[in-house]
Structures are given as C-alpha cells and as structure tokens.
C-alpha cells in the first residue's frame, strides 16, 4: 500500500511535525512518498520521493494552489492513503482533496487498531473506529499521537512540481502569538482553571491556590475565550505547551487540545466532579470534588503548613 505524506511549511520554515507523518507510515509499514510546498534549502529528513513545489513562487498557504499541486501528485503517485496532520493546514486542505477524489476522509486519528483508524469523539469521551469503503482514503492524524523514537533521518529524492493554479483567497501576513508578560513554559508549578470554575469570580480560587503553591495560574481555552483569564495564560495547542513539575487542573474536562499542552508535566493533579472526565487519563491523582468547595480548603491547609 502506497502512502503520500503531506508535510507543512509556514512563514518560510519547514514544520518539524513532518516526523509524525513518517512515524505513522512506519507504524503502518507502508511505502511512503512525501509532498511539500517548501524550500529546497530546507528538506525534510526522509528516505523516499519528495514532491516539492517552491513556496517562494507560490507564497504562503493558498488552498486552491496546494490542492492542485497535491492532486497532480496523487495522479502520478496513485497512493492508497493521503496523510495530513490534523492541523490548521491539514484540516483545511484534506477535505478539499477528499471531495476531489471522492475518497473517504477520516479525521484526527489517534491510533490504528486491527487495521482500523480510531478517532476521539464527543470531547474525547468516546472513541470511534472507522472503516473506509473507498479505494483511496484521506487521513488526518492527531498532533502528537504518532512519534518517532529518535530524530528523523535520511535524504529524499526530490521531484520538482509546479502549477499555474491561482486562488481567490490570499494570505497577506501573520500575527505573532502574544506572549508578553508571563511565560508559563518556564513555570515549575501551574494551577489551571477550566470551564468547571463556573464563573469569573471563581478564578480567584485558582489564583489563590497557585499563590499558595508558589506557582503560576493558567487556564484552558473556554476560560480564556470567555475573557476570564488573559490569553498568554492559555495552556494547550493554541496557547502554551507546558512541562512543569506540578500541574493542577481545576475543573478541566481534558479536551485533546488541552491535554496536548500539559500531558508531559511531571505530576498532574486533576480536580473534577466527573470521575470519567478525560483529564483522568493523564492525571496522576484525580480528586473527585467540587473545586468551589475543595480549593479554599486545600489553599487554607497549604497556607497553614
């Protein structure tokens, strides 16, 4: 079975996540080729054919252009699987390819069990295993779900590709992440507030615990989106990825995007009323309690030590 891996390039740089695509292909033991709209001066470390379009010519991500380039490669390579990362690039481009090829698309694969891709559904509370019934399948893999033991190695055989396709939307630039102020990636102790805090006033309980532990406070996405905590304290895929010695998740159910940003912490404590919350999967200790009752007591006892 032939697999085509779709690597990513943004703001003039190759995205290192391509190694996860290689890890997926290795796990499936399939013959793989790679596609990249990138730069010949910065090639992925990969043994196989690399179909390379020039990002300097085509500019930053343009869906119409990338779709055409990729469809041309699919026509040449005839892969059974086309694999993307489940990323802002992958989930944008993959459905376009699936529609054009009339192929099944399976999104956000976390594992392959008995030959069938498995995806998380319902805020990761459930899993679905899915069978494609088309000869060709478009897949996106969850960030971090597949990884190589070491660094990727090798040198690709480059095949230059090009197109005259032009798109109707234009990427005109980038806005950098706002990371001034606190840098959670350097904190040794982080106490984070999730949706379970219920209302903005309760964020103070989380802040108080963070202070009692001598750490920083953070938050999951819903709390930041609600404006209760500033964005530079958001932990997760679109915020900071943190690895403190102690991470305390207060009222955080454990959406995949949050787990990806904190699961490598040395010690994880979760405080949640729901014993079955996905955060329990990564927590060393799950305290089943209402944080509004539990946090003040814990903070007081810590202060009295």
């Amino acid at each position, binding site marked *: 079975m032939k697999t085509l891996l779709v690597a990513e390039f943004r703001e003039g740089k190759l995205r290192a996540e391509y190694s996860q695509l290689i890890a997926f292909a290795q796990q499936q033991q399939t013959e793989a080729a790679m596609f990249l709209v990138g730069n010949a001066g910065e090639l992925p470390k990969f043994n196989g054919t690399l179909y390379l379009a020039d990002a300097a010519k085509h500019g930053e991500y343009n*869906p*119409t252009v990338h779709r055409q380039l990729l469809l041309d490669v699919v026509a040449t390579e005839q892969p059974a699987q086309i694999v993307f990362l*489940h*990323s*802002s690039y992958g*989930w*944008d481009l*993959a*459905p*376009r390819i699936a*529609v*054009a090829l009339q192929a*099944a*698309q399976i*999104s*956000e694969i976390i594992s392959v069990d008995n030959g069938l891709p498995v995806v*998380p*559904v*319902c*805020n990761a*509370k*459930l*899993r*679905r*295993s*899915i*069978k*494609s*019934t088309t000869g060709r399948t478009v897949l996106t893999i969850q*960030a971090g779900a597949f990884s190589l033991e070491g660094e990727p190695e090798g040198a690709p055989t480059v095949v230059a590709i090009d197109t005259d396709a032009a*798109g109707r*939307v234009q990427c*005109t*630039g*980038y*806005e950098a*992440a*706002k*990371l001034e102020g606190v840098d959670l990636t350097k904190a040794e102790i982080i106490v984070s507030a999730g949706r379970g805090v219920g209302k903005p006033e309760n964020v103070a309980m989380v802040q108080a615990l963070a202070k009692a532990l*001598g*750490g920083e406070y953070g938050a999951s996405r819903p709390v*930041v989106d609600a404006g209760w905590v500033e*964005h530079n304290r958001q932990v997760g*895929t*679109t915020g900071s990825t943190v690895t403190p010695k*102690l991470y305390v998740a207060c009222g955080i*159910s454990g959406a995949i995007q949050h787990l990806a940003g904190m699961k490598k912490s040395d*010690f994880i404590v979760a405080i949640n009323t*729901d*014993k079955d919350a996905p955060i*329990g*999967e*990564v*927590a*060393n*200790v*799950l305290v089943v*309690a209402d944080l509004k009752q*539990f946090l003040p*007591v814990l903070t007081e006892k810590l202060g009295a030590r």
Partner: protein
Amino acid sequence: MNILICIKQVPDMESKFKINGEGTWYDRADLAWRMNEYDEYAVEQAVRLKEQLPNSDLTVLCIGQDQASESIKKALAMGCDKGVHIADPDSSQREPIAIATMIAGFAKEELFDIIFTGMQSQDRGSAQVGVMVAELLGIPAVTTIVDFSYDENTGAIQVKRELEGGSKALVTATTPVVLTCQLGLNTPRYPTLPNIMKAKKKELRTVLPAPAAVDARQETSACYFPEKKGGGLVLEGEIPELADKLIQLLKEKTSALA
C-alpha cells in the same frame, strides 16, 4: 447580503454518554441538547454583520431530528431572520460528505454571499463539512477564523485564521465564501426574552431531505469508551480529608512543597 448559517444540534458534552444498541454511536436517550458551540460563534458573527449591513438576510439551516428546531429557534432569537430545518432522523449516522451534499444542495438554489458555520461539531468533530460544502459549491473557504471584518466600500473580507502555537494568518477574501468559525471569534449573545418572543413569529420551514445523493464512503466499525489507563489514583471522600491526602501525596511524590 444574503447569508446562510449552518448549525448542528449536539448533546451537551457534560452528559453521561451511553453507547447505542448497534454499538456505532451514542444512545440519544436521556441527553440534554444544545446548539453546537462553534456554531454559536457563526450565528453571532452573522448577526453582527447584519447590524453592520441592515439589509442583510440571515437564513439558519439545521439538519436533524424534530428537536433540532429548538436550536434553530435559538438562532432566530439571537437575530437570524428565518430558519430551515431539514428533518432527517438519520442525520447523526451520516458521514461528513453526505451532510455537506445536503447543505450544498440547499445552498445552490439561493445565491448566498457568505456561509458561516462552526469549524467542527462537538460530537463528531471531523472539521470536514464546512470545507466540503465550499468545494461542492465551487467557492472558496477559509477555516478556523478568530477575527472577521467586512469593508463595505471595497467588498473585501478580512479574517484571521488561528494557527498552532497562538499565531494567526491574515487572510483576505471576497464573496461568495464559506467561513468556518473557531471558538473565541466573538462573544455569542444570549437571546433576550423579547427576542425569544419575536423569534416565534419568524419563518421556520421544515423540508424533507433529498434522497441520498452520494454513496457511503465510510462506516463506523465501533463506538466505545476509551480504556481507562491505569496508574492514576482516584481520591473520593470528604473535602478536608481529600485535601490532607492530596497534600501528603504532593509531599511524597513531588518537590512542590519542599
């Protein structure tokens, strides 16, 4: 401007899920239902655009069982003008391309300038339908937007796409276009009581789904609860004892209290 907003009704994610008899999806019984959170941002953005351009017409479309009309009513109470309910008892079993084909079939009969929808649903979470609708209609799509503005003089749409690590791509587009909305795009309003009353008088049309236009491309082999990964200690009991136990564990297992 003629605007379509595609919404989905999903279970409240805090619900206790059970697997259905076929083992292919969750059991619909005993769940609380609500508008897909991502779609609330889509509705809000459309309503804000209508505030900017009062001549706009906002149609909200939802595919699903009878109760899905409740989510349409919420969208109407938030400010949409009319609702269309494609009454499809089997929608939860349909794959993304099938749903997208139904939406595109509806949308191609009217020329919509902008189609807003959530970037994914909270239950299936495929993030495919919005883009597929655009591809089927042959119009551009910009996904995962966290900022939107429309320039009345030039007709230019400026959006910001959310990328990994918190950076954003600045993207310009023109109509017609499909925009898929990410959380945080705006602050969705709560319908006020007067607007809820007004919404009852708005047009809500129920139509039957067209016969399946696409062959199945995938099937669910199984739906199940993830295996509990052992190792994690679960503490239950009275609050003060829980706090003592946790402090003891932190002392033993971490250097946090050193």
